[in-house]
């Protein structure tokens, strides 16, 4: 795992959203859990003309956020958003929702291979963030997928960047 500190600009994103416990039906890194199904729905939308409907800024990168709500600690339910960066949030197609990814200071971690399926959040919280001397905002985390991420079935050859928002 590689770690660095970075400043990120505010980004506008368009994509699909889910709230609940994504592991209720299937657990693990399965395409059948709700996160996998969200990606599948996004993929179907994207390749059936969605790509042309959106004011895309960068089509080589996809983002997945996990947004934690007050009840997350009680019930395990949270919000998952996946989408791409766009130039504006006005007039998005009906199927798509817009999000603003806050800019600011982030710790960025590069996970490779099996690290992606490990409990990296615990590692970040208990080893890496203290080592970097920073404290995280616990309300959300961001995963950035680009051409280095091959597929869920091919984690061993994949790389994934995780952005953790930091307290000022």
């Amino acid at each position, binding site marked *: 795992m590689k770690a660095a500190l970075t400043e990120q600009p505010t980004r506008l994103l368009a994509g699909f959203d889910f709230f609940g*416990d994504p*592991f*209720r039906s*299937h*657990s*693990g890194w399965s395409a059948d859990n709700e996160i996998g199904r969200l990606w599948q729905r996004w993929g179907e939308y994207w390749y059936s003309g969605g790509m042309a409907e959106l004011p895309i800024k960068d089509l080589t990168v996809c983002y997945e956020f*996990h947004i934690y709500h007050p009840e*997350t*600690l*009680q*019930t*395990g*339910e949270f919000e998952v958003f996946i989408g791409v960066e766009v130039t504006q949030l006005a007039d998005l197609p009906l199927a798509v929702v817009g999000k603003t990814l806050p800019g600011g200071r982030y710790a960025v971690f590069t996970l490779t291979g099996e690290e992606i399926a*490990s*409990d990296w*959040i*615990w590692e970040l*919280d*208990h080893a890496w963030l203290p080592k970097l001397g920073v404290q995280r905002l616990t309300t959300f985390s961001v995963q950035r997928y680009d051409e280095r991420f091959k597929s869920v079935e091919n984690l061993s050859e994949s790389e994934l960047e995780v952005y953790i928002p930091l307290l000022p």
Partner: protein
Amino acid sequence: MSDLAAIVRALDFIESHLQTAITLGDVADAVAYSLYHFCRSFKNATHYTPYDYLMRRRIAEAARALLQTAAKVTDVAFDYQFNNLETFSRAFRRVLGQSPSQWRQQGQTGYRQLLPPLTSAHVEHIARCGPWQPTELPDFTLALVGVMTLGDRDALAWAWLSRELVGVASRCESCYAWVCHPRGDERERAILVAVTAEVLPKIPPGLVRKDLPQATYLRFAPVGTARDLELLRDYIDYVWLPQSDYCVAHPCYLVRYAATPGLPSSESDLEVCVPVKRRQN
């Protein structure tokens, strides 16, 4: 610590905090997992989400307390960390299909209704043999001929059936155990160890014929070994069915053994069939 060991510790932690205000974050912390990884691993290991498991365990113990004590329903609700009576009643009805007061009035536990604590044996069995995708057998029935006995005298019954099968065993590829709990609880148990009626068209004087109640059956396989039978039954009744559209139609189950009684059985070929009906919401 392996995932299984961590989940077993989490189960223990939950068990000792059923009457304490805890969050899933506390349970995840107790096993040194992030909440996200914990929820994923717990579901993978138990086939319950941790929140659902915690709620069902609390409801199970609250339901027991309603039958075994004279405590007020409200006090029981608070004891098991439900903030108000309405939340408790809603959760209670969702799990047990009736209100806490109706439950108390009824005065007894139904057939395998209350989720017991899952143990390391359950979790290890799920990891070794699961997940199960049961086959639905609509309008299934089976005519069986065999030895009926009460209690735990299975070995005696199997020995008797083996003797009756001398000479016809070559026609018999499977044998069955039909286990019933006639009073709807596990205190009384009747077992028919049998073969299908085709194997013994002329019923010997010492044997009985029993046609299984016609119903939709769900067939679960593999069981694991014969020693895992009770673990699979627990899985079916306490984990799989409560999260499905089905409930038990009769307090009975059928085990098929892919061997003739008296011969060494192929333990990996065991299967369990459970009569079910659609749940009425």
